[in-house]
């Protein structure tokens, strides 16, 4: 009786799930320590109400953007810890020595590293940047649906917490690689809760990404300032549009693929099993139909960032603007047609492999248009080498290098030699770190003054670029070589002594990368301490070209006192040239009210996910009903906006100018 009640409420959860290994105890202590510190600080400084009212329930995209970047920064740190553990293990584990990690633990680490870096670090940083920049660039005050935006953010946070919950309950994460390929991830081969944590954290955060994608598409299509035609949009907005289109196309496929795996694990169906007529190879196809376009979701916004930066710091309008846009659209289209190159060796046959090899090579063409646009923008421009421009130059060197490696991998015949080797690992890290992440760093340096009112220290910024670039090549060039020497990916142990020196060099590279990251932290601290010195009162510190620079820094919550009218590309540059910037009039502004429903619904989704991991079906059902009730209450709430009268706007503006 008691026992069946326990199963009904607690499912599979029991005492043995609590932490008892060094890494789970360490993780639990670290997580609860962080939690307690935050709680203590909030209580000591009496900031609970402020946090709830000003931040957690905010529908202001600027606030949500900053919260995205903070959480994603934490997850970047978490993913980097995983990377460090992998690096140290591989530099030690030769011959007699087996390093300091067990095989299964090592497998969990590389799985978590991949998932956290893609879903929670990079995606989070990008969603943050989009929230901060896109409404300002198109002359809007908000997104199409403020509720979907806060809900998307909180689902992302729910997923991020869920993927770390295994430290506290369960003690194991998925040990199946970041995409949990079948049949390994089926119940028969992975009976523990690790894969279930993987499933539910990705489902929860994936739903958030989908909402964000839908919201940005609707915002960019429906809410541009009068006069801003599609071909007058800033490059970053174009890139966000393309990225959102890919998100909308692929995330439903991810959701349904994971759902089928879930049915296999929970209800004994046979989609991807090796028995019952299931087809594990179908999973590989479906997951890469999501997986390949996903890397373009990551890189496209950075392309947009580079376009903005190159134009601003070359003091020229973007050369070949239309080709630039065609480049973005071309990448978007081709991104969906190349997924099979991830498994040329699965045996689809020469014809199919050739078709996908050729379509993969074609991605060079739109990318070349983008590079042509950047180079010709710089040509005969008055180039100012500020630190965002340094990030761009670093990106050109890494991305060209990694791109050439990618072209090699796209030949099926060559791919058979280096498939799943460290050559591949080095290639995609070059693209994602050297492409997407450098773009995000460039964007943060470039737009930082817009949201804080002061610039970052330039000298330290340039040191950071130099360290990242050096560290990057030092860490990953050895992996290219090791790949050619036959080292496969995901090795926790090897017997060839000639590999070890290269792994050692790679670790040194990682340490240089760490100093680069520390320099960036130092840069932010120094800039905050000396903020008076770096203060920018104009709102336009770089002599910018697009509408976001027409607002004061930090941006008021209503963005614009009156919605600007756009007559050309580079709208703000045009205004400055024709001296139209001084004109100002005030109008009534409709502002969305803050809402706690994003948090409520996401919290219910989190509880649902956690309950499903442990088969607590009663609690899962309650969470589902709670989420539905929240949706219903919010849908029929008519009081979601208030009007800020023009007189109040004038007052706020006068107060700001006085300060």
């Amino acid at each position, binding site marked *: 009786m008691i026992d069946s009640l326990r199963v009904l409420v607690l499912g599979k959860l029991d005492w043995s799930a609590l932490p008892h290994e060094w890494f789970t105890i360490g993780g639990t202590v670290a997580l609860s320590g962080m939690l307690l510190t935050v709680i203590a600080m909030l209580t000591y400084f009496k900031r609970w109400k402020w946090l709830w009212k000003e931040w957690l329930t905010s529908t202001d995209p600027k606030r949500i953007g900053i919260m995205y970047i903070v959480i994603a920064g934490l997850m970047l740190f978490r993913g980097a810890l995983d990377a460090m553990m992998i690096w140290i293990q591989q530099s030690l584990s030769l011959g007699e020595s087996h390093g300091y990690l067990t095989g299964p633990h090592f497998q969990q680490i590389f799985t978590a590293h991949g998932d956290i870096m893609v879903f929670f670090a990079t995606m989070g940083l990008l969603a943050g940047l989009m929230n901060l920049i896109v409404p300002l660039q198109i002359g809007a005050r908000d997104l*199409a*649906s403020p509720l*979907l935006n806060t809900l998307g953010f909180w689902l992302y946070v729910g997923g991020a917490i869920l993927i770390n919950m295994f430290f506290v309950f369960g003690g194991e994460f998925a040990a199946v690689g970041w995409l949990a390929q079948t049949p390994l991830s089926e119940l028969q081969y992975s009976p523990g809760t690790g894969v279930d944590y993987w499933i539910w954290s990705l489902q929860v955060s994936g739903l958030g990404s*989908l909402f964000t994608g*839908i*919201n940005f*598409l*609707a915002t960019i*299509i*429906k*809410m541009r300032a009068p006069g801003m035609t599609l071909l007058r949009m800033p490059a970053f907005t174009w890139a966000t549009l393309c990225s959102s289109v890919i998100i*909308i*196309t692929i*995330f*439903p*496929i991810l*959701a*349904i*693929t994971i759902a*089928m795996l879930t*049915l*296999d694990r929970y*209800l*004994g*169906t*046979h*989609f991807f*099993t090796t028995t*019952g*007529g*299931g*087809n594990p190879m*179908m999973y590989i196809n*479906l997951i890469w139909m999501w997986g390949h376009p996903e890397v373009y979701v990551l890189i496209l916004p950075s392309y947009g960032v580079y376009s903005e930066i190159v134009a601003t710091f070359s003091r020229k309008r973007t050369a070949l603007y239309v080709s630039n846009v065609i480049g973005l659209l071309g990448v978007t289209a081709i991104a969906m047609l190349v997924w099979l190159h991830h498994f040329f060796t699965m045996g689809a046959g020469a014809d199919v492999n050739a078709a996908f090899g050729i379509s993969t090579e074609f991605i060079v063409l739109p990318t070349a248009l983008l590079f042509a646009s950047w180079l010709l923008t710089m040509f005969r421009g008055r180039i100012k080498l500020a630190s965002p421009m340094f990030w761009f130059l670093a990106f050109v060197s890494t991305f060209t290098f990694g791109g050439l490696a990618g072209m090699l991998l796209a030949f099926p015949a060559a791919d058979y030699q280096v498939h799943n080797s460290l050559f591949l690992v080095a290639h995609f890290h070059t693209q994602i770190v050297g492409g997407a992440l450098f773009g995000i760093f460039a964007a943060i340096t470039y737009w930082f003054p817009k949201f804080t009112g002061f610039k970052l220290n330039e000298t330290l910024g340039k040191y950071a670029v130099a360290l990242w670039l050096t560290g990057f090549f030092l860490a990953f060039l050895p992996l290219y070589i090791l790949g050619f020497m036959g080292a496969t990916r995901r090795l926790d142990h090897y017997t060839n002594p000639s590999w070890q020196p290269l792994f050692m060099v790679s670790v040194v590279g990682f340490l240089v990368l760490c100093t680069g990251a520390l320099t960036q932290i130092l840069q932010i601290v120094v800039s905050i301490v000396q903020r008076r010195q770096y203060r920018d009162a104009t709102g336009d510190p770089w002599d910018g070209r697009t509408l976001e620079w027409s607002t004061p820094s930090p941006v008021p919550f209503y963005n614009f006192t009156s919605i600007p009218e756009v007559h050309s590309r580079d709208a703000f540059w045009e205004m400055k040239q024709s001296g139209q910037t001084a004109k100002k009039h005030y109008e009534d502004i*409709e502002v969305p009210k803050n809402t706690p429903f994003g948090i409520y619904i996401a919290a219910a989704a989190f509880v649902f996910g956690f309950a499903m991991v442990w088969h607590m079906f009663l609690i899962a059902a309650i969470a589902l009903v709670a989420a*539905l009730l929240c949706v*219903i209450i919010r*849908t*029929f709430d*008519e009081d979601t906006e208030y009007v800020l009268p023009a007189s109040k706007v004038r007052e706020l503006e006068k107060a700001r100018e006085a300060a």
Partner: protein
Amino acid sequence: MTATLVEVHRAEEKARKTYFLFWVYLMTDLLMFAGLFAAFAVLRSNSFSGPTEKDIYQLPLVLAETFILLISSYTAGLAVYSANKGRLKTAQVLLYTTGVLGLSFLTLELTEFSHLISDGNGPSRSAFLSSYFSLVGTHGLHITVGLLWLVILLIFLAKRGLSESMIRKVTLFSMFWHFLDIVWIFIFSIVYLMGVSL
């Protein structure tokens, strides 16, 4: 006077945004169904010595389901029309009809499912049945959500009448219902008709 014009303009703007968001959502849902259709196409012949498609499909029943759903879409469309004309009572009656038809569709589908399961041909019998139950069942789940939505819509319609935002909500429901009808047409043709003829 100008103030009300501004308000009307804002309401229209808001409706446009909401409809667009909902259309995009419907497209994502369609892509999710595409994944299920793809899985079904791959696995439909993997009956693993269990029943094949020809053994289990009962076309007369499915044809009845199809007509019921088609008619319910028609009544849902008429409900939007009456709501826009400001005829609350007619809209309510039409929505009730839609609900009753939807419920009968669901009952027929669940009867079919329970027969299969009680014969030992549940979703875990073979890959074919896994994909069949998931595809048809996901549609059925959508219908269930739609019916729940309809109940709540009818409660608030009785309470609040045909305000601007209630008309918008009736329209959104109707879009959802039509979307489910289109998906069902594909299920009817690709699953059932092709299943008995191939």
